[in-house]
């Protein structure tokens, strides 16, 4: 275990180590050397990468996308778990199948579709879905729905049936059963999913590069490229930038860690 952990952490720590060193020092002495300490890489990465703006972009994409994904998938999951009708399995199958499709395969259809969907000027500068955050929010939501639906519906199936029977006896409507009964009970699962979704959507790189072509609209992951030049790239600076970009995910992870772990195990022990 310890050996594996070291192997796993080594590249990360190596990047962290070199992000505190000057390029000119490592250039002359090699990366195995010791010295040339500086904090400049961080301030320069922040300024040159324009991370303030791009972190805000990432935030504007990630938060609505995660909220929307969780809301929609919990709705579907609720129906799938609580009501049995003929197409239950088919529906779940469709959602899962969509999850298995590689996004690259859908690149061209999605791109063309978005190009032809008009948006009013206050929503998108270009007048189409392209180059707007709406496009990224929708695409990310669509691609994450399958997985969330699957996890949530399985989780909801483990809730004791009796609760719903008594709720129904008390006259709770379907909406009330969903919103006031199920949602509080699946909170651990929602928190676990939220953690995962924030990480995934925040780290998403592919769609952002394809659907956005305005430099000032890129999320922070794509903005990391700003630190590379046409020919020359200062690897220490890129290391510093990567660590800045990775920090928010770590914060979210540690903040929600407790929920995350309990969410995972709760799902597994209830049979």
């Amino acid at each position: 275990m310890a050996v594996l952990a070291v192997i796993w952490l080594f590249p990360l720590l190596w990047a962290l180590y070199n992000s505190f060193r000057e390029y000119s020092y490592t250039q002359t002495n090699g990366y195995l050397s010791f010295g040339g300490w500086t904090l400049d890489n961080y301030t320069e990465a922040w300024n040159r990468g324009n991370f303030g703006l791009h972190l805000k972009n990432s935030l504007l994409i990630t938060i609505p996308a995660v909220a929307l994904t969780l809301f929609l998938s919990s709705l579907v999951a609720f129906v799938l778990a609580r009501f049995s009708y003929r197409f239950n399995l088919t529906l779940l199958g469709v959602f899962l199948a969509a999850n298995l499709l590689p996004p690259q395969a859908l690149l061209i259809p999605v791109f063309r579709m978005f190009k032809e969907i008009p948006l009013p000027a206050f929503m998108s500068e270009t007048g189409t879905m392209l180059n707007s955050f709406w496009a990224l929010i929708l695409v990310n939501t669509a691609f994450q729905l399958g997985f969330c639906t699957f996890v949530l519906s399985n989780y909801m199936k483990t809730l004791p049936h009796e609760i719903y029977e008594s709720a129904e006896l008390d006259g709770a409507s379907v909406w009330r059963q969903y919103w006031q009964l199920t949602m509080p009970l699946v909170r651990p699962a929602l928190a676990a999913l939220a953690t995962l979704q924030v990480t995934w959507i925040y780290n998403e790189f592919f769609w952002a590069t394809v659907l956005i072509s305005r430099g000032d609209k890129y999320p922070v992951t794509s903005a990391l490229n700003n630190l590379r030049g046409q020919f020359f790239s200062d690897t220490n600076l890129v290391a510093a930038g990567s660590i800045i970009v990775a920090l928010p995910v770590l914060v979210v992870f540690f903040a929600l860690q407790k929920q995350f772990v309990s969410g995972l195990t709760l799902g597994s022990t209830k049979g």
Partner: protein
Amino acid sequence: MARPDPRESRFSSTLPASVNGFGRRSLLRGALGVGALGATGMLSACGDDSTSGSGSGASAKAGNVKFGINEAKGSGPANERLQAMADAYAKKAGVTVSVNAVDHNTFQESITTYLQGSPDDVFTWFAGYRMAQFAEGGQIADISDVWPLDGIGDAFKKASTAADGKQYFVPVSYYPWAVFHRKSVFEKNGWTQPKTMDDLTALMKEMQGKKMTPFAFAAKDAWAPMGTFDILNMRLNGYDFHMALTKGEKAWDSPEVKNVFATWKTLLPYHQENSLGRTWQEAATSMAKGDCGMYLLGTFVVDGVPKEAQEDLDFFTFPELDASIGSDALDAPIDGFCVASGAQDEEAGKAYIKWLASAEAADAANNAASAPFIAANTAASTAKYGELQKKSVEVVQNAKSIAQFLDRDTNADLANTVITASLQDFIKKPDDIDGITASIQQQAKSILG
């Protein structure tokens, strides 16, 4: 990264205009444009337009433009120069130039989706095949009516012309490839720049005698070894052969190409070993440190060496290998601008692009930035140039033919997937020339058709 095939992009022209033109926004912009037209049209009528007085492109009137540039904000002098040009034009013509800055690599990698999606009116691009490919596909606009341009020579015009004989590009700057070395190292050992291949061979042997590797060499950046291939090809077979080969008119398994690889093989022992694991920056560092004597690279090599070595650099062009071919061709990739076909205001784009090629634009860029580029316009001021740049101008002006570099002169798919891998194979196994050339030719045939 998965990208749509460039050929796919032809569909974009079949889209109904209503799709592109939808929205009140564009209507509004149109109205604004008309307003601006009135104002600037009067200005130029007052004889303000002295730099473009040659009369051509008179139809192009200044207006608000959207300008896509391939250097991210704050990424250094390259961005400063482009921004300065945009600002200078906005001030001069009294229009708004809205700059969309994307970093170099992302811009280049997503160019097809950019052009099909919502391109800016004018954008930065490269001369040669990379431009011609989009001209053929109809994504960039014919701008032959802004040519001829004052101060832009014939070699540049040739590089701005697509297969249909029309111009789709205006050049702004270039950077030559040559053999770089440290002046102090040469002085200390009493070496001089070799004029002939015999001189070079003698020099390489002497360097080896001093436990110095003659040529620094890196192939981890897959494009880097193309420089060596290009120069050997142009010295052995000439510029015309290079162009015919990259267009698919000559075969990659021809005796000429095999000869290039055979010559390269004899030179490989003079190059740094294990080059496949080395980036050009590391190779440049080993030349700066004096472990290696020389390095064949573009002038951007200065970015890869420490400050004190930058002042100490000098270069020479690769010597003649065949007297009947001479040594008057070299790689000097040209950067410049195109007008997108989907431009919202093509006329304004043309007016802007014509100005961008002027000496005034080049001077505005070089005066504002911390490091100058080498202007394509011969009338541009050279006051800001460093020694290397002054010498570059001289070398390029003396060159009879200018190639754009292998990956800019040929199909991007062929260059980036086939040739890069094959050159790395060759460096690994220099004995298998027949196998490597046959494999390139086979794939070139299927890609170029």
